[in-house]
């Protein structure tokens, strides 16, 4: 069974650009998460979907970050417009249910110049 896949693995953007990160969760999982990982802030939850419905939109990340889940097997995270402070690793994870472990993808390393 395939794990969580994320594309691209690396992305370089100019300040002000729009970028879209992609995630395919483990087949059959109901929950999907987007996290941002930086050395200073650690892991921060950006968005959470349950059965394709957006349950958490990340509070402080709302204005330029938008996650969507068009079907149960594909999600995108759009950052518009990008800023240098968005440089980080973006992790996607899925889980079969509450209180179950999360399965993480390899992440997308975003660099904004």
């Amino acid at each position, binding site marked *: 069974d395939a794990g969580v896949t994320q594309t691209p693995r690396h992305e370089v953007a100019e300040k002000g650009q729009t970028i879209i990160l992609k995630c395919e969760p483990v087949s059959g999982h109901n929950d999907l998460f987007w996290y941002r990982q930086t050395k200073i802030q650690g892991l921060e*939850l950006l968005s959470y979907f349950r059965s394709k419905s957006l349950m958490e939109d990340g509070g402080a990340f709302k204005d330029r970050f938008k996650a969507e889940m068009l079907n149960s097997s594909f999600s995108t995270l759009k950052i518009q417009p990008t800023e240098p402070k968005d440089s980080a690793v973006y992790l996607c994870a899925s889980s079969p249910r*509450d209180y179950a472990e999360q399965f*993480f993808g390899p992440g997308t390393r975003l660099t904004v110049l």
Partner: protein
Amino acid sequence: TQTVSQSDAHVTVFEGDSVELRCNYSYGGSIYLSWYIQHHGHGLQFLLKYYSGNPVVQGVNGFEAEFSKSDSSFHLRKASVHWSDSAVYFCAVSGTGGYKVVFGSGTRLLVSP
């Protein structure tokens, strides 16, 4: 609000040594605790979890963790480490609601040959 603290940012041991990675949490209700490992350039990978029952839980690759309600702790241990255990280890806690996992800041374990 649940919080999780990993007091050691870095731990260095020799191959074959035992190791304990510390995790303390703060939460008043029912709690779900877990540990994840992250190798360089990869996403997080689940190691083990505790929700109820036997306070000592076994995970993959010889790892175990012990829950202590009195100490508000969930420390991770391994009796004999291998160089491949070098990675960052994250303690995680979630409470009522299940999905929202709070991750600690991580402990980087370096195993010297």
